[in-house]
């Protein structure tokens, strides 16, 4: 390791603080968005008592979580019961380490500041690896609760997650083939150009605008819903069917941890969709300069893109009904996996014809 000095360490700590701080604040904001958004869609008002427009509702919820009694069910394996929420939270928080959230710029001292916590050579594989680890939180929670409903919810949800992980991985591979590298910074740099249509219209060269990746975009987005256990794929927590699935027996802070890990996983996967398909931090039609203001603008644009995607997550949740479990599994294996394969062939053809 060549030349890591104190300034590098300090900058890394700053980057980690920014990213983790942003992720931990996602939950209160998303709770508010979810409740007001669902009220908007369902033609009612939603929480509007606690503060203007109900903005402090999340604070009230957090206080409630702190003050509730922490129950451990009889016959439950105490260690695993307490560890399960952590298995869900750790992958959600660490995956964001390889996502670039702004344009690299030069500090006044000449040092290059890269707004990515860890620019690994195998960046995206870390995300897949940690996504496979998030299955353990659910399976352990379902089993350790000593409750048949929790066990069924846990097993179903983990079967769903590992099935859709395949579609997720394969659809991301087509993006990586086009970018020629596993690093997410390279994937974003490749999308900072322009497509020129009919010599007149200049489209930003985002992957979502390239016809070879439309299938991958659709498959990845659907698999993202399945990975985070959001409707229409939320059989694990299907209210009114499995009580509350794998987190039936959890109360107060442990339940809050599950809650948080779901929203943070949603934010991370939205960040991933943005990076792979929507151009990451690239501001459309603007060449960002390598200065601090360019970096700030690109970070703000990244946040806007991620927020739009997260609102779409909420929107879909309250619009589309839940899929039946066997239909869900059948679609995962018989529809989305073949579509992901077809997309790989399509991208390979485009690369061979040098259209990409």
């Amino acid at each position, binding site marked *: 390791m060549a030349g890591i000095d104190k300034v590098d360490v300090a900058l890394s700590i700053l980057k980690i603080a920014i990213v983790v701080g942003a992720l931990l604040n996602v939950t209160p904001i998303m709770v508010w968005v979810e409740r007001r958004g669902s009220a908007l869609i369902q033609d009612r008002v939603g929480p509007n008592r606690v503060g203007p427009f109900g903005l402090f509702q999340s604070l009230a919820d957090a206080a409630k979580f702190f003050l509730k009694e922490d129950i451990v069910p009889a016959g439950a*394996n105490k260690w*695993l019961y307490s560890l399960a929420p952590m298995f869900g939270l750790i992958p959600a928080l660490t995956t964001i380490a390889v996502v670039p959230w702004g344009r690299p710029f030069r500090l006044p001292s000449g040092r290059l500041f890269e707004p990515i916590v860890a620019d*690994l*050579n*195998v960046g995206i*594989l*870390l995300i*897949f*690896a*940690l*996504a*496979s*680890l998030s*299955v*353990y939180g659910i*399976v*352990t929670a*379902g*089993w350790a609760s000593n409750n048949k409903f929790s*066990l069924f919810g846990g*097993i179903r949800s*983990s*079967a769903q997650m*590992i099935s859709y992980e395949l579609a997720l991985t394969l659809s991301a591979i087509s993006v990586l083939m086009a970018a020629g590298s*596993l690093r997410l910074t390279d994937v974003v740099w490749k999308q900072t150009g322009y497509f020129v249509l009919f010599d007149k219209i200049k489209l930003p060269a985002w992957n979502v605008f390239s016809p070879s990746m439309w299938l991958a975009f659709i498959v990845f987005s659907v698999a993202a819903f399945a990975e985070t256990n959001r409707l229409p794929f939320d059989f694990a927590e299907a209210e009114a069917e499995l009580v509350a699935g794998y987190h039936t027996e959890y109360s107060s802070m442990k339940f809050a941890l599950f809650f948080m890990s779901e929203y943070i996983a949603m934010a991370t996967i939205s960040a991933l969709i943005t990076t792979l398909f929507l151009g990451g931090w690239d501001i459309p039609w603007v060449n960002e300069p390598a200065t601090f203001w360019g970096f700030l603008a690109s970070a703000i644009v990244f946040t806007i893109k991620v927020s739009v995607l997260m609102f779409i997550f909420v929107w879909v949740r309250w619009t589309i009904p839940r899929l039946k479990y066997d239909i869900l599994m059948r679609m995962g294996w018989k529809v989305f996996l073949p579509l992901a394969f077809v997309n790989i062939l399509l991208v390979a053809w485009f690369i061979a014809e040098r259209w990409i």
Partner: protein
Amino acid sequence: MITYAVFFFFAAIAVIFALVVILHRNPVVGALSLVASFFALAVMYVLLEAPFLAALQVIVYAGAIMVLFLFVIMLLNLQRQPEEPTRPIQQFLGYVGSSAFGIGLVYYLSKYAVMELPSGPFLADARAIGVKLFEVYIFPFEAVSILLLAAIVGALVLSGRGVQTS
């Protein structure tokens, strides 16, 4: 300096959780300890300058195979049956025999396997592995895909769902 600390820490984790696997009665705890051990091994692979294989280790072993193990243990409800302890003579011979084997192996390795450190960086990224895989090892690659197909068919038949009698 930090490299040595990381090596010793994760080597200790790998060994301790491996011991938990073979010594604990409950197979669920054993499976989760094996996951931790695989994770520590993935860190070892990173120290050996093979980050691609480290990620593959977590994806394949810790993320898929162990989930399969956990499914089987939980669905068959195996932790409810207390396992009878093995006969003392088998335990004694097993522990003594494997310890003798292990001590002999470690002794001879530390005496004869001294090698000088490799010079220069080792390029083990995805591109290099991909080139080797699709040029030199293309036949084993295709053969492994047929083997996986055979494994899928075998697992289906053994679990009784693949055979349809009309």
